[in-house]
Each structure stands twice: as structure tokens, then as C-alpha cells.
């Protein structure tokens, strides 16, 4: 029996579809980004403008803001597809769910993770981040934000059927984000002190590979529960 | 017996507040959890019984109408 299109074709089709939809509703891309910028701007106003203090806390602020921005944007990952029934069609399609889910998560990362990485150096300038740390900041964001999207998608898939999923979502996924936060900020700190930080990057990369392999199955299983 | 008198036992060598705070909170929490858990069974059963009487009434009403 012919199973329709190949896995790669299904993956690419879904990826292109999601990107196209997002480009037509640009607010979905810009709102999390604006939130990220605003949160980072609030910190100097709260802590005080001394450059030494800001240099010390900059990695933490940027990363915590990135966690929150990624969480906020994740909420819409499956919402539209769930309410118009596309999600159920996806569950019924002959392609394995994990491939489709991976395409959706990748699209989400391209739309929210990549802009975040591009804006981060500008914000780092505002926060007087140590000159040596820029490379580490970009590297940790590049490795870390996909992990955030993958882990967060599990939580979103679990709560998509619920009416009041928003607050619950933060309770579910923020604890899972802790290891990423710890290793990313410590890599940036180490870079600021001119120490080697490839160990932390290796662990972040390991987390990325691990969640890339395991998370799609968890997301798929959660979606099956939510659409039941 | 490590303590000479009851007052000394309460005092706990000066750490009375902390020791009794932890023991108090622990047994308070556990007691609340246990009472709630024990009461839960009765609550569930009463709820089921109420549902049954509701169904019964529904059935009777339907019987008189038709």
C-alpha cells in the first residue's frame, strides 16, 4: 500500500505551512520579542544603573527573560491547530506523529528562538555585558533555545485542551527549564572571567540531542491525550 | 532519659522554638492530610448517593409524564 508522501516531504510541508501562517500574522513573531526586550529593560530600572552591578547580573537577566519569552510564545504552538481541527487530522495521518511534531517545534523555534538570538547582543550592550562573553551568549542561546522549545512543547501539548492552560503551563515547564538556565548562565559567567566554557556548551548540546530524541515522543503522547 | 525536668525538655537546650516549630508543623500537616484523606471516602460516597437519588427522581418524573 502506498503511504502517501515521504517523511521528509511531510516534514517540509508542515514546516513551510507553519512559517507561512506565521508570516501572515506577524504579531505572533513580534510580541514575544517585544516582551523579551521590555523585561530586559525593566531590570536596570529595578536594580539601578551601575555598570558593575549590571555586568554581574546580565547573563541571568537575559536568560530568565528568554525563558519567559519562549514560554509565552509556546502557548500558541498548538492552539490554532487544535481549535480548527487540523491537529486531529495530523494525528490521523499515516506519517508518524513525532516527525510532524518536530516540524512544528522547529517552525516555532525559527520564528521565536532565532529572532531572540539576533536581538540578544543588542540587549547585552544595554546591560554592559562583559566584552568576552558575547560569543558564549550567542552559543548558549543557539544551543539552549531549541531545548526550551522542545521541553516547553510537552507542557503545551498537555495543556492545549484546557481552557485555562496559561498559568498551569508555567508551573509545568519552568522547573524543567532549570538545568538549561544553570548551564547557560554559568558558561557566560565563565567566558566573562576568561575561563574555558566548552564543558558547559557540551552539556547544553547533550541536552539538545537528548530532548531532540525523546521530546517528540512525549509531545506526541501528550497530544493524543489532549485531543481525546 | 536525657532531660532532668519537663521545663528542660520544653526548652531543648535553648533550641526549643526551632525543635517544637518543626515537630508542630510536621504533625499538624500530617494530621490535616490524614483527616482530609479519611473524610474523603465519606464525601465521595455521599456524593454518589445524591447522584443516585437524583437519577431516581428523574426516572419517576419521566414515568408520570408519558
Amino acid at each position, binding site marked *: 500500500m502506498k503511504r502517501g508522501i515521504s517523511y521528509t516531504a511531510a516534514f517540509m510541508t508542515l514546516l513551510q505551512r507553519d512559517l507561512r501562517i506565521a508570516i501572515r500574522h506577524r504579531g505572533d513573531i513580534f510580541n514575544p520579542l517585544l516582551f523579551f526586550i521590555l523585561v530586559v529593560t525593566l531590570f536596570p530600572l529595578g536594580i539601578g544603573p551601575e555598570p558593575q552591578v549590571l555586568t554581574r547580573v546580565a547573563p541571568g537577566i537575559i536568560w530568565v527573560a528568554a525563558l519567559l519569552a519562549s514560554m509565552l510564545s509556546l502557548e500558541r504552538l498548538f492552539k490554532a491547530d487544535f481549535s480548527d481541527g487540523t491537529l486531529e487530522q495530523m494525528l490521523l495521518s499515516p506519517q508518524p506523529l513525532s516527525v510532524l511534531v518536530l516540524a512544528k517545534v522547529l517552525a516555532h523555534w525559527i520564528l521565536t528562538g532565532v529572532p531572540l538570538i539576533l536581538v540578544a547582543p543588542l540587549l547585552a550592550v544595554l546591560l554592559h555585558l562583559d566584552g568576552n562573553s558575547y560569543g558564549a551568549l550567542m552559543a548558549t542561546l543557539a544551543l539552549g533555545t531549541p531545548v526550551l522549545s522542545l521541553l516547553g512543547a510537552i507542557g503545551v501539548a498537555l495543556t492545549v485542551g484546557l481552557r485555562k492552560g496559561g498559568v498551569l503551563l508555567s508551573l509545568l515547564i519552568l522547573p*524543567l527549564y532549570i538545568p538549561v538556565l544553570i548551564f547557560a548562565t554559568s558558561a557566560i559567567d565563565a567566558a566573562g572571567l576568561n575561563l574555558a566554557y566548552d564543558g558547559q556548551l557540551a552539556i547544553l548540546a547533550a541536552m539538545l540531542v537528548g530532548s531532540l530524541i525523546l521530546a517528540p515522543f512525549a509531545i506526541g503522547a501528550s497530544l493524543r491525550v489532549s485531543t481525546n | 532519659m536525657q532531660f532532668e525536668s519537663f521545663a528542660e525538655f520544653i526548652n531543648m537546650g535553648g533550641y526549643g522554638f526551632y525543635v517544637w516549630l518543626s515537630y508542630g508543623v*510536621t504533625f499538624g500537616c500530617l494530621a490535616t492530610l490524614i483527616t482530609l484523606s479519611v473524610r474523603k471516602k465519606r464525601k*465521595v460516597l455521599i456524593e454518589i448517593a445524591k447522584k443516585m437519588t437524583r437519577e431516581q427522581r428523574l426516572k419517576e418524573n419521566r414515568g408520570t409524564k408519558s
Partner: protein
Amino acid sequence: MWKWLHTYADPERAYKLSGTLLPWFACLAIAFIGLGTTWGLLFAPMDYQQGDSFRIIYIHVPAASMSMATYMAMASASFVGLVWQIKSADWAAAAIAPIGAIITFIALLTGAAWGKPMWGTWWVWDARLTSELVLLFLYLGVISLYASFEDKVLAARAAGILAIVGVINVPIIKYSVDWWSSLHQPSTIKITEKSTMTNEMIFPLLINMAGFGLMIGAITLVRYRAEILARNGMRPWVRELATAEEAK
């Protein structure tokens, strides 16, 4: 080989079995905790460094060690429920979660009350305290996810997936927090010095640990029975029980 076990997946049998086990667990738990606590509070010798404040250990350590074990128990039950579609296992997981949260909360609070006289502060961002706090968040996540679904069959599955994801994450979180705290603070704080503990001090501790385990088992059975009844409201044997209860 495991056929005999499957008969206990039948709710009525599970309900009756837990009913027979409950008094044993409850009596043993009361006896153990009573003995361990009295021994620890009254008869165990004073610690020469920490004075009498070390007596908090007799509830802190059992609670802390049981908090992790309870999470594992909950996740195993969810796993059985998800993989073999055994609903009784799902109900067991739902029954355990609130108990685990309370035990974790007790471990955190007694830890704070012990830290104040010993370290001079209620809270330090120590590795163990931090990972215990994260464990509490995981428990709360599972409980609120279970509570927010109307359909409890789906709720159990969703909470089960979350609990299992949590199990994969617990070691990673624990490791990262250990590593983080060794990076951030000089290791001036040692929670327990094993060598200073004499047998006189350790026996009540072991008794209390066993007692806490039994007590968690007993409360689980109580909640499990209520959960079985709540999920099987349509079955005749539950309806009989309900009529009997209402007549009381």
C-alpha cells in the same frame, strides 16, 4: 506468571485488598513513629556540636528521603497505568501525589527550622534544599494538571506523562543544582557529619524512616480507596456502599 496480579486490577478486589492492608500499615506506622520520635526526643544523647537542635533530624531526614522515594512510586504507578492501561495504577498515582507534596513541604520547612539555629539563616541556596524545592514544584505541577482535567481518565494520563518526564529530569536537575552550588558557594556548610552519629542516635532515625514509609503507605491506601470509589460511581457494589453510607 503475572496473571495473578491482574486480578487486582479489578477495582473491587483492589478496594478490598487495600482495606485489609490498611489497619496493618496504620498500626505499624503509629507504633514506629511513636517509638522513634519518643526515643529521639527523650532518650537519644545530645549532639556535642549542635546541642538539642539536632533532634529535628528525626523528622527532617525521614521526610527528605521519603520525598524522593514517593515521587518514584508515583511515577512507577503512572508508568504502569500508561503502558499497560491499568486504571487502578492511575488511581494509585493520583492518590500518592498530594502526600508526596506534603512530605516534601515538611522536609523543606524542617530544614529551614534547623538551618536557622545552625547556619544563622532560614534558607541557603544549598544544592539539597534547591533540588528539594524543585521537587515540590514538580509535585504541584502533577497535582494541578490532574485537577484541571474534567475527565479523570485523561487527567491521569496527562499527569502520568508529566510525572515520567519529571523522572527523566529529576537526576539532571539534581546534578545541575549540585554542580551549580559547588560553583557558587564555598562548601562551608555540611548538613550531616556521619562520623559524629552514635548508634544511640541512629536507631531512632532508622525507626522513624521506616515509620514514615509505612505512614505514607497507609495514607496512600486511604486515599486510594476513596479514589477507587470516586472513579467507579456507576458500579453496583459502589452504589451499595453509598446507600449504606447515606443511611448512617
